[in-house]
């Protein structure tokens, strides 16, 4: 499924998403990009990597980066609990399909969002950078955040000629 900045709402069905909780907020991902939901498993820290993707996991014999959106959305680090999950998604980065694991405090449900409930992220009133968000969607008294993942990860995939310095 293509992943565009503007969600690909269909008039009759809306947008099918997987919602998950992170740092007290509810996030949503297009269901089509979700590959698998994993229980918490051993992770390997990558020294010197950006906090957004500071570790890797073994996903079916493949090395998959583990991304943690908390930092980008101004949230505190959070201890792993029994509800913690890793959502493995496939995104096109630099033209190549890329597997990425996303840390989640809990995975909620697959549901349908409607374009009529969507709003652009306001200029003020949210505590994270506006460009990290594709849109906000009102749903059952809650607000669901659709993060702009390609935008978030672009900073890391840019051909880094100036490598991250090690401490």
């Amino acid at each position, binding site marked *: 499924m293509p992943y565009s900045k503007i969600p690909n709402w269909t008039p009759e069905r809306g947008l099918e998403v997987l919602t998950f909780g992170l740092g007290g907020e509810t996030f949503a991902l297009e269901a089509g990009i979700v590959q698998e939901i994993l229980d918490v498993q051993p992770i390997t820290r990558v020294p010197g990597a950006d906090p957004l993707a500071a570790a890797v996991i073994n996903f079916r014999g493949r090395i998959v980066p583990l991304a943690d959106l908390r930092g980008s959305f101004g949230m505190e680090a959070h201890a792993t609990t029994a509800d913690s999950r890793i959502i493995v998604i496939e995104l096109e980065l*630099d033209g190549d399909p*890329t597997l990425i694991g996303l840390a989640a405090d809990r995975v909620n449900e697959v549901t349908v969002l409607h374009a009529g409930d969507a709003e652009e992220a306001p200029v003020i009133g949210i505590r994270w950078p506006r460009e990290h968000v594709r849109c906000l969607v009102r749903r059952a008294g809650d607000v669901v955040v659709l993060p702009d993942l390609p935008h978030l990860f672009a900073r890391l995939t840019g051909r880094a000629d100036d490598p991250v310095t090690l401490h």
Partner: protein
Amino acid sequence: MSEDPTAAFRIEAGELLEQVEQGLLDLRDRLGDLGLVNAVFRGLHTLKGSGAMFGFDALAGFTHHCETAFDRVRKGDVRATPELVDVILSAGDHMRALVDGAASPAEGQAILDRLAAAVDAAAGVDAPGAAAAAVAPAATQGWTLTFTLPPDAMANGTNPLALLDELRELGEATIVARTDAIPTLDELVPNHCFVGWDCTLIGDITRDAIEDVFLFVMDDMEITIAPLASQVEAIDPAPEAAPGPAADVVAPPVAANDAGNRQPAAAARAQGEHVRVPAERLDALMDRVGELVIAQSRLSQLAGHGQDLALRSVSEEIERLAGEMRDTMMVLRMVPVSTLFGRFRRLIHDLAIETGKSIELVTEGETTEVDKTVIERLFDPLVHIIRNSCDHGLETAGDRIAAGKPGTGLIRLSAHQAGGEVLITITDDGRGIARDRIRAKAEANGLITPGQPMSDDELLGLIFHPGFSTAAQVTNLSGRGVGMDVVKRTIESLRGSIVVKSVDGAGSTITLRIPLTLAIIEGLLVRVGEGRYVIPLSAVEECLELSLEEDLRSRGRSIITLRERLIPFLRLREVFDTGTRPDTYQKIVVVGTGAERVGLVVDQIIGNHQTVIKAMSPLHRGVASFAGATILGDGSVALILDIAQLVALGQPREERRLAAG
């Protein structure tokens, strides 16, 4: 997963062109060889046919002209000449461009003009070999054919009527349809071909011409071809294939298969069956095997702890199978270097024309197998080295004869396996590398001071310095913006090394040592803090112990003395910011790249580990310290250290520290 059908055609066309090119290069050496003429013709014919089928009309049209020219060679009214072969070689390049959609029509026309000229020049001349052979394949008064098309022929795009028309074009044809195999209406499959045909062909027709009509379907169809009015002779010497002209006999499948094997498309099979597999499927298989090995090691642990003998026996069986699968998997990616060496025949051919020198290429050890990725990445460096040898190394024929050597220069390309490495050497018998010119140039560039004493190896090593070129003038061949420094970097990126030897007046030898595969390395598994890392064993020179007291004493200088050399060291615990306390008995792993050495302080050396390398994710592109990652027996991930980066990291730190302290 639907694939673009033209992508498959592009691959097929690439292979066909490769075969045609090899055939042409062979033909250039043996102009009378009819087998080669036929092979080239069939390659062109197939390319034209499948090109038209996939909508590459410009390609089909262009190829048609070359095919026609070669058909005339085949029939003996045009002689195969070096000029003609050269034109078809460049026509092959143009066909490649047509396949890629990057061709210039003007260039195509120019080639066709040259082709016409070459054909005219070679036409009407007695061509003994060709003429004899054109007659040889039993031209008779005519043939009888009995054939049934493969059931799916129409679904695959074959038009039976067009085949019949092609038969009619060969000569006077009487064609009768056999309808007895047509089922009743309720069993009829509309796009299946149930009709068979009996055909009598009168005229001076070769069997090849008939086989060509069925070129694309011959593999799967039933066909009997017998000379008319003579004692029956089937297409192959199978004794039972002996139908009379009107006999309603189906040829045994063996006959059809044998006939199929004469086709060019099947030529590759002569060296054994091959299956083309997209690389990503191999990678996926490799991932699965990796998982299997991990799951198996967990099973072994469970079985080892339990008392269940049956479970333990199954576990051992699976351990053996998983190990074998892993070994087999590794070999799947290996291809013989002949696929690489073959491409240089064309290069030498072109270089000989460009330089006006007479050059012979000798290849050895072509069956040596190397990982496909390695082979692909070796191509450009080898092109550069061979160009250098032809351009700078070899003398002109006149100079060679004056120096008492044969007029033809020799380039020898050889490969052989030595342990986990393959050695590739490129030797020329030219004038050798002029050391005085290297020295003069290096002095002029300020690389060395005038009169600076240097060993011979050091002096020759200067050619790998960036921006260094000894060509008195940049020629068309060598002045392409890449120097030996790029070659060296490419080889080193393959974890290989390069050595130059040269004898004045007798030529040069360049030896490349390359690991057989990039997929696996021998590594030293170490622990730093709570993380485990792999150090490529090829970079490890030795391991020493660093006691806590020594560690504390060495604070502020981080230098050890090893056999009277000062070696800086990096505490990986600090570099990786583990936030843990050092072990009481830390180890120093001394690693090196080239002349540089650095000690890496680790908490524990776990042991040797055969490592399947996996690339880091694009999200970790900015992290330079790791060359990749691997999965350990327990399923966890260990990062592989990039030694060159760590050594580079170590050097300035220590220099700063020394300068400060």
